[in-house]
């Protein structure tokens, strides 16, 4: 039954074998060493491939780094560094893996909470072998759900396959395979069975496809968008109106969630009671470039932020400098989501994914004077993101904006790297939550060299087709995109237009997978979670096209928003060297 995927995550062995469920890759998370030892033994007896860790953040790090490296997560509810339920949400959002909770306490309310947060099962300790032998059913079930959901109009909470690469999970296709244009539309080749049982062909929203989608959305104007219009603009012959409608629905939800997260972050980020009002996602394009926001924040423009010393400090960091102003009507709000998130422990589960990346950044920010954008999260709700991204890259060229905060550290601000920007988008790294430097996302490791990665646009240029275009665009944009920072991360990040969809999560460090190197799938290593490859690409497209930027504020912003969030994070992550993790 297991189809061995020929493509495996960069450096990651694919455990799939023909003897499923044997070889099931399980990640066990428990702070109790005794239990961890016992569970490991039990799982090995089931012929599973076991990885253990004692901290939630460590688990997230591993999950992000080894995208597609695990099939299921089993975690204790009571973890010292993070509430088990929160971990649960993150995993569901970012990796879309089935999660089983464990606890000594079998109180109904707790069990219910687990289920509500998305746990596919709740085991009481002491756990018996027979309970563990059956966990593969959850893996299978989830894959089947994903297969069905793709292309459907039904919205599944974790259905953002184009963001989370769920499809990839199902099919085993890795994002790396972005050379394969055929990825855009393929039949599901679920590892678990043949797709013939599925009613419709799954549409894999690859980065490229999603970029087209976002570009179309931006061109039309988010408020006026409709599936038919988008479809017409996209010019993808095999795509149906239903596919687009379904995708649009998810996209909207995604944006809404990001907005909420931003808001939450805003409040969280030291600005506790900041009112993030801009909840309006679609129309609030006005968000400033996150970078800008940061600066604003730094400058105390945004009241909320000031409360937070770190933020303030960060605010001053380069990132903020970019004022995106030009492009979109941004309200002073900043890309809050980015920042806020890091500290935010309250964001809705769904947001978690997004927020996390920011969070990560935040932590760093603190340490590293992180780019303001993060700080600003406290401020404005999302809309900001939307737009900012675009112009920013150019900043190097023309604008005075600066390199994204992240970059400040080590990353050369490479504004021109549009790709960077894109990639970041999803980097919601949970890692920023953890102050602990242990998590070193791979990109961190690369930091020293990574910086170089950010670097030259050229490197990324390859990744993005329109690179040159983008640069031009950037010039036109006044705003400073934090992109530079993103660039850095971008190497991790995906932004490869071609990259197949999948999680672009920017893993810490290795994120770049996306771009050219191994994008997509490959590696999301690192902590940043790219919301979607598509997004990143999209951003790029956006950048390239001056028209949308100027003309379609909303559209852009939407896209930007996506990217915005991530890039910052990713940058942050990169820069931050270990500070990313904030617990």
């Amino acid at each position, binding site marked *: 039954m297991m189809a061995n995927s020929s493509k495996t995550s960069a450096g990651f062995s694919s455990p799939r074998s023909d003897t499923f469920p044997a070889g099931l890759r399980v990640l066990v998370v428990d702070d*109790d*060493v*005794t*239990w961890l*030892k*016992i569970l490991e*033994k*039990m799982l090995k*007896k089931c012929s599973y491939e076991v990885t253990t860790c004692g901290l939630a953040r460590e688990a997230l790090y591993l999950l992000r780094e080894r995208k597609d490296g695990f099939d299921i997560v089993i975690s204790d509810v*009571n973890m010292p560094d993070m509430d088990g339920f929160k971990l649960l949400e993150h995993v569901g959002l970012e990796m879309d893996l089935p999660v089983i909770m464990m*606890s*000594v*306490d079998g109180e109904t309310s707790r069990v219910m909470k687990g289920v509500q947060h998305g746990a596919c099962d709740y085991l009481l*300790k*002491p756990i*018996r*072998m027979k309970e563990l032998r059956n966990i593969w059913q959850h893996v299978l079930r989830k894959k089947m759900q994903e297969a069905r959901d793709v292309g459907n109009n039904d919205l599944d909470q974790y259905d953002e396959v184009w963001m989370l690469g769920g499809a990839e999970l199902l099919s085993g296709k890795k994002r790396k395979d972005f050379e394969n244009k055929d990825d855009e539309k393929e039949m599901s080749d679920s590892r678990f069975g043949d797709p013939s049982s599925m009613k419709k062909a799954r549409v894999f929203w690859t980065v490229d496809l999603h970029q087209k989608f976002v570009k179309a959305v931006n061109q039309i104007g988010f408020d006026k968008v409709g599936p038919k219009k988008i479809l017409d603009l996209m010019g993808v012959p095999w795509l149906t109106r239903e596919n687009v409608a379904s995708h649009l629905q998810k996209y909207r939800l995604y944006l809404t969630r990001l907005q909420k997260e931003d808001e939450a972050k805003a409040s969280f980020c030291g600005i506790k009671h900041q009112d993030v009002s801009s909840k309006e996602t679609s129309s609030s394009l006005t968000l400033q470039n996150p970078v800008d926001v940061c600066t604003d924040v730094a400058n105390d423009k945004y009241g909320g932020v000031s409360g937070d010393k770190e933020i303030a400090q960060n605010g001053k960091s380069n990132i903020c400098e970019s004022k995106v102003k030009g492009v979109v009507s941004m309200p002073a709000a900043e890309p809050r989501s980015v920042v806020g998130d890091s500290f935010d422990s309250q964001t809705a589960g769904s947001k978690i994914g997004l927020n996390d990346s920011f969070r990560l950044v935040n932590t760093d920010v603190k340490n590293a004077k992180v780019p303001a954008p993060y700080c600003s999260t406290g401020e404005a709700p999302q809309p900001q993101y939307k737009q900012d991204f675009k112009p920013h890259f150019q900043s190097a060229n023309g604008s005075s904006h600066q390199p994204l905060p992240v970059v400040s550290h080590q990353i050369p601000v490479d504004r021109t790297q549009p790709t960077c920007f894109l990639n970041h988008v999803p980097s919601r790294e949970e890692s920023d939550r953890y102050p602990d430097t242990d998590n070193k996302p791979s990109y961190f490791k690369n930091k020293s060299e990574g910086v170089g990665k950010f670097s030259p646009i050229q490197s990324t240029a390859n990744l993005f087709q329109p690179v040159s275009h983008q640069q031009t665009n950037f010039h036109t944009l006044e705003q400073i995109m934090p992109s530079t920072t993103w660039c850095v991360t971008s190497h991790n990040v995906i932004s490869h237009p071609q990259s197949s969809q999948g999680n672009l999560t920017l893993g810490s460090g290795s994120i770049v997978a996306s771009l050219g190197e191994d994008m997509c799938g490959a590696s999301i290593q690192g902590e940043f979670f790219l919301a979607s490859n598509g997004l990143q690409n999209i951003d790029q497209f956006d950048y390239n096209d001056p028209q949308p930027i100027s003309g379609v504020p909303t559209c852009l912003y939407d896209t930007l928003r996506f990217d915005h969030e991530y890039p910052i994070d990713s940058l942050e992550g990169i820069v931050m060297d270990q500070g990313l993790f904030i617990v």
Partner: protein
Amino acid sequence: MENQKQRQAAYMRRSLLDQGYLDEQFIHLEELQDDTNPNFVEEVVKLFYTDSARFIRNIELALENGPYDFARLDNLMYQFKGSSSSIGARRVKGQCTQFQEYCNARNIEGCNNTFQGVKQEYATLKTKLETYFQMK
């Protein structure tokens, strides 16, 4: 000789179970033991005692002077209890539960007394298991 040792070990295990020192979890651990890891159970028990010592210590410190943080005491004991359940330390667990009840009732004296019981059961079990493992 071997047979006799095995019989003694089996007898002791039976009696530990019957007297409530251990529960089925311990049996499950023994079932997990195999040739790849012939001392698995002993390793687990040693790990438990090494790791759980910090709980004992922290609870002791928390019980020293007021103001008493019952929430913290409860949480520490909750973790310790979870850990104890891993090796099937039934009597220890029983004392833990009682301790938690006193925490909820904010009864410091009850907590103190029960905690003595926790430590006692914890120590007794350790000795018995050490003897048991020597037999095997």
